[in-house]
Structure formats: structure tokens, C-alpha cells
């Protein structure tokens, strides 16, 4: 039963992911991305990481993608015309594909994936208490660093979008 669901949702996730890349209409792309997020959340549920699944839907499908759609609709982005692919794009995609293949191969061949379920550590994404505990002990530094990165990105956006006078004061 679980295997069937896994195959259904991973197929949907991959198909929707391909749809995001291939669709020329930006709204279609955004909807495909929502489909990917939802099926990834379903896979989290199958892994019994309920908390992560819910957060995935709440943050990505429920908030981030609403903002995406909002911007797409407000800017009225038209369907992008087919452009000629430059040499750099080709080189970059070949390198990207190579890295993807190496990564997948290393994950599949690694021993950790063959470990018996009983030998795995207690899952920390399943419920609130272990998740919060891990977040504020083991992963405290990565969390802080991510927070700072997001803060820097936000300040960068404000600085870029605000037109300043030569003496630095806001117009």
C-alpha cells in the first residue's frame, strides 16, 4: 500500500517538476510547482515526517507560492518566446547534469540507504518535541546562519529596490 502511494506521488512530483521547467506560461509553471510541493509533502507523510509535511504545505504551497502568483499576475508576465540557447547555457546544463548523475549514483551506492529501519535514529521530523529539540541544540548554528542569510537577502532587496540620492538619503 505504502509503496503504491510512494510511486504515485514520486511520479507526480517528477512530472510536475518537468512541467515547471518546460511550461512557457508562467502561471502554469507556478501551478506545477505547487503540485511538486504537495506531492513532496505527501512523500514526507509516507516517511512519517508529519510535521515536515505540514510545514512544507504551510510555508511553500500556502505562502511562498501565493506571493509568486501575486507577482506573476501583478507584473502581467506574458508567455516567453522561444529564445536561442547560448553556448554558456549548454555548458552549464551539461555540468549540472554530470553533478546530478554523480550525486544520485553516490546516494544509491552508499551504505546508509541499505541500513535496516530499526537501526536508524529516532526521526526528528515526526512530531513537535523532537523537532524543536533538535533545532535548538544540534542544528542551532545552521539555523542561525540561514536566518542571517535570509536577513541579508531581504536587506539587499530593499537596498536595490529603493532609489537613493548620491548622499545616501532616500528619495
Amino acid at each position: 500500500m505504502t509503496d503504491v502511494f510512494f510511486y504515485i506521488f514520486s511520479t507526480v512530483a517528477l512530472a510536475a517538476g518537468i512541467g515547471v521547467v518546460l511550461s512557457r506560461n508562467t502561471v502554469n509553471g507556478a501551478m506545477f510547482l505547487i503540485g511538486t510541493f504537495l506531492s513532496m509533502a505527501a512523500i514526507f507523510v509516507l516517511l512519517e515526517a508529519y510535521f515536515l509535511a505540514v510545514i512544507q504545505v504551510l510555508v511553500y504551497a500556502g505562502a511562498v507560492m501565493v506571493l509568486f502568483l501575486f507577482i506573476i499576475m501583478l507584473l502581467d508576465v506574458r508567455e516567453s518566446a522561444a529564445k536561442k540557447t547560448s553556448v554558456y547555457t549548454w555548458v552549464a546544463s551539461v555540468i549540472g547534469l554530470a553533478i546530478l548523475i554523480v550525486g544520485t549514483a553516490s546516494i544509491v551506492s552508499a551504505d546508509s540507504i541499505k541500513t535496516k529501519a530499526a537501526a536508524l535514529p529516532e526521526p526528528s521530523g515526526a512530531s513537535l518535541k523532537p523537532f524543536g529539540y533538535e533545532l535548538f541544540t544540534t542544528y542551532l548554528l545552521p539555523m542561525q546562519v540561514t536566518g542571517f542569510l535570509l536577513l541579508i537577502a531581504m536587506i539587499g532587496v530593499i537596498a536595490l529596490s529603493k532609489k537613493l540620492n548620491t548622499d545616501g538619503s532616500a528619495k
Partner: protein
Amino acid sequence: MEFNPIIVKFVYAAIVVVVIMTLCAYAVLAERKISSWIQGRVGPNRTALPIIGGIPLLGPFLTRLGIFQPLPDGLKFLFKEDVVPGHVNKVYFIMAPILSLVPALTTVAVVPFGQFVTKTGEVIPLVLANVNVGLLFLFAVSSLGVYGVVLAGWSSNSKYPFLGGIRASAQMISYELAMGVSVLPVLLWVNAPGKEGTMNLFDIAQAQNGFWFAMWMPLSAIIFLVCLFAETNRLPFDMAESETELVSGFHTEYSSFKFGLFFVGEYAHMIIGSCVFTLLFLGGWNPLPFVTLETLGMDKGILGAALSVGIFLGKMCAMMFLFMWVRWTLPRFRYDQVMRLGWSILLPLSIANLIAYALIIFYLDTAL
């Protein structure tokens, strides 16, 4: 005889959905009746069923109340011509009404509506899925409801629906933040040190045996209520519709059954919102503050379960009445006022509220 548990769950889910849909139909009737009373009118009072309407005294009385009105209302949505204008984006145009109703009906799964106490004193929640992250699940799924409105506005490919959809998406994002932050004090109190972490709505309701949370966290309750009005797109926050400026907002181009789905979706969202407010702040199925069914000695067996469901539904109906009362009493905000209220009043207020209650709860947990 043992039934397949999956089939049993399907049957339960079907029953709950039917009950919610019936409640939606009668909520529409209640809206029409309450609006007419507030405006000094009579409201729907003519529709009668052949046999029941013919019973002396009772028949005319029910007809006056408009009890039979939801049936023709529903049939009207079914039998009217379904117009799909030529200039719309068909796929999204058809998908949008479904997307606005489905999340509302999905969230019902985690909403407990009563308790069943066995003879041995074991408490069983009456809920479809008793999950640990219930409240978060509810927020997550109901936040998907906005796609229905946004896509309806966009796919209609005309100016007024588009403005309605854009306004709805901005409003949803703005009020979700304050809403999420305003319930955090409740969760802080429910998850006292030493307990297993929970966001289960049943546990939250059971934690209100003494004070209801609306009584000692009134600011949280008020902020949550205001955000609930905004999230359900009800007046004074119905920016997505605002019929005096945008014709009918995001569903201007919709007719017949597709419009009916939006209509039912709005009421389903209201019903779920009322349920959640009752569970979080109004003590769930506890009859009075400091009085539970257990202290009254009426909590055991089927009778106790029916009583708890009845009390819960009663509180929910009171909340629904509040929704309608406010709609027909207050004028609509201007769009910039809605945004200012959300970002520069409700959000800072809810954060200050959270910090204050965090300090109070820390003091209560450590000093006492």
C-alpha cells in the same frame, strides 16, 4: 463482524461532509433570515413542501421560518444555465471553484466535534483524524483555499475579477501572519514543560477545563477573530468581492453551479473557522468555565457524547451568528485601511502579546 477500517473511515468522512454541506445550506438560510431581521424585513417565507407544509399550525410555521428554502436554492444553482464566457482561460476557470471548496472540506478531518467517554473513564475524541499537528494541518490546508479565489480572478481575464483576486491574495498573506502568531500563547500554555509536544485540537479543547482561553487571553482571541474574518473574506474584509466597487469581485464571470461552489465554499470556511475559534478559545464542549460534563456527572456513554456534540454545535452556531451580525452591521474597510490594520496594528500587537504571555507563562511555570 469486522469491517475494513479504510471503508469505515470513508463512511465517517462521507457522513461528516454531508453534515457540513447541510450546515452550509442552512447557514445560507440563516444569513438571509438574519439580514432581513436586521433590516426590518421578513425574509424567505413562501417556500413550502407539499405534505409537511400542509400540516395545520406546524406547516405554516415552518414555511414562515423558511425551513424549506435551501432545497429550491440548491436546485436553482443546478438548473440555471452554466455560462462559460469566451474570453476565459478554461482550465483554470473550471478548476478555481473546486479549489476553493476542497480545502475547506479537507480541514474538517482534523476538527474534533465532541468526546466519547467509555464506562471505564477512557476519553475518546470524536474526530476523523486525531493527528498530533492538527492545528498546523488546518492552517496549512486552509491557506490553499486562496488559490481558488486568485485563479478565478486571473482566469476570468477581465478587469474587476482580476482586481478581486489580487486583493484577496495580498489580504490572505497579510492576515495569516498575525493569525499564526496570535494562537502561539495558547500553544505555549497547553505545552507546559514536561509534556509531550502537541498541536492537537482535542488536547487544546481538553486543556480548558478551568478558564477558557478567551477569558485569560482576550487579546489573542480578538486578534484571531479579526484575522478569521479577513481569512474567510467576510465583511468588513470582503475585499475580494466588494460588490460596490468590483461588481462582484472574483466571481463576476461565474454562473450557476460554479458560482454555487464558491458560495458554499465561503460558508464552509466560516463553519470551520467558527469550529476552530470554539476549540481554541471558547472551551470546546465544556458547558461553562470551571464546569465540565464530568463535574455535572453527565459525561458517560452515548448520552454524554451527544451532549458534548450538542454543546459544541451550539457554540459554533453562536459564532456563525456573530459572523452574520457583523456583516450586516459594519461597513466595509477601504483597501489601504485593510492593509494598514494587518501590517501595522495586528501584527505588532500579536507579537507583543506573544512576548507578554511567554513571560507570564514562564513565571507561572517556574515560580508556582
